[in-house]
């Protein structure tokens, strides 16, 4: 009769578990992989896109907006970039909430919101859905890459239960176990952003199902400090830039050569 406790998000099962939260987390472990690595001079995020196909119109992502293709990686404020895994519609709602919270902080304190505070605000909201009745929890885990003058570069992870934690390198979504053990092996203390990009690319290529990586399957972002202004600079790569980066790390498609030889 375990099902009796399935439908309500806020009711403990006799074993002391909240099934809906666990199901949400299960759903996320099938979603596209999102990977984050903290470096001494920046943070790197990469995400696997799930909605792909020849007929998908990606014309806007070529040069519209602020970069990226808007499926997995979003800019929350000048100093925080986020990667999402799970239900995209739920994620959109959370991203909207986070952006409002960040701007409200800017309004009252005239400073960018500290990264941990922003993560906390979202987690307060997520936690509410594990306690107040009748509603479904957010089926989203997030990776926050950010910078603030209090603790410099930071990487946080939050899950549907409203827990959050800080990481040097971590992964959410499909194959997160494999990715995490790879990261554990390869991560070095005081790694630089350039090497972190290489590490992220390598782990991504091993955890994703497809043999060759390309901008249609991959989103990529970095957060660094602008050397002149000393302000955080988020860069969400455009498809062409992702492909260039993949070529640089010898992970991209070699379609040109293959076409010619065949």
């Amino acid at each position: 009769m375990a099902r009796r406790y399935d439908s309500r998000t806020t009711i403990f099962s006799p074993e002391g578990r909240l099934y809906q939260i666990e199901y949400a987390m299960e759903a996320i472990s099938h979603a596209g992989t999102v990977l984050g690595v903290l470096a001494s001079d920046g943070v790197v995020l990469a995400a696997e896109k799930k909605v792909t196909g020849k007929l998908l119109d990606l014309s806007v992502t070529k040069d519209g907006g602020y970069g990226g293709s808007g499926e997995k990686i979003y800019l929350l404020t000048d100093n925080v970039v986020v990667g999402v895994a799970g239900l995209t519609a739920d994620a959109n709602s959370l991203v909207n909430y986070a952006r409002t919270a960040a701007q409200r902080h800017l309004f009252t304190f005239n400073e960018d919101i500290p990264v941990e505070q922003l993560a906390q605000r979202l987690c307060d909201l997520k936690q509410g859905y594990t306690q107040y009745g009748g509603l479904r929890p957010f089926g989203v885990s997030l990776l926050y890459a950010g910078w603030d003058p209090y603790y410099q570069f930071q990487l946080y992870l939050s899950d549907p239960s409203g827990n959050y934690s800080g990481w040097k390198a971590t992964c959410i979504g499909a194959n997160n176990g494999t990715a995490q053990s790879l990261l554990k092996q390869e991560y070095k203390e005081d790694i630089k952003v350039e090497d972190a990009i290489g590490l992220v690319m390598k782990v991504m290529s091993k955890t994703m199902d497809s043999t060759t990586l390309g901008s249609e399957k991959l989103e990529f972002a970095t957060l660094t400090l602008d050397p002149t202004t000393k302000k955080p600079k988020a860069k969400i790569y455009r498809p062409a830039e992702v492909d260039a980066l993949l070529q640089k790390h010898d992970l991209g498609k070699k379609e040109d050569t293959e076409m010619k030889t065949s």
Partner: protein
Amino acid sequence: MEVSFAITGKGYVILAADQNAARSIIKMKADEDKIKALGSHLLMAYSGEPGDTVQFAEYVERNLRLQQMRNNHPLRPQAAASWVRRSIADSLRSRSPYAVNILLGGYDMANKQAKLYWMDYLGTQVDVPFAAHGYGSYFALSLLDREVQKRLVISFPSFKVKVVDEGGVREVELDMTV
């Protein structure tokens, strides 16, 4: 008839405020402390409508303390000043506004800089190297404009003087006999 001053130097801010509590022609107290330590590296000198001043200063003090407990670190002087300014500005537009003038000095541990903010009861805020409130400002600002003088020529019997620098906040005794 109140007065408060502040000057910044390399890595420190000094705040001074008179110690009188007076009403009309009667001086009721001569050892009032009008400078609050709002944290380990933040000082606030307040003056204005009696009653409003203490009420508002305590409101600010407790709110900033709450922020520090919630976030495990104190606000930077710049952020604290913005919050205080906003509180004054919101209050000004309410039914019963606070009439409080403020000098907020702090040492920013994030970028190792001393900061001073001048604020009045209308919600004006400026980031300044030296500042003063009250009648004393008419004397002091002209002096400070030329250069920071060694002596302040105001006939208040005593001043509370507090410094904030990298080591935090502390009180200093001012020898008024010179």
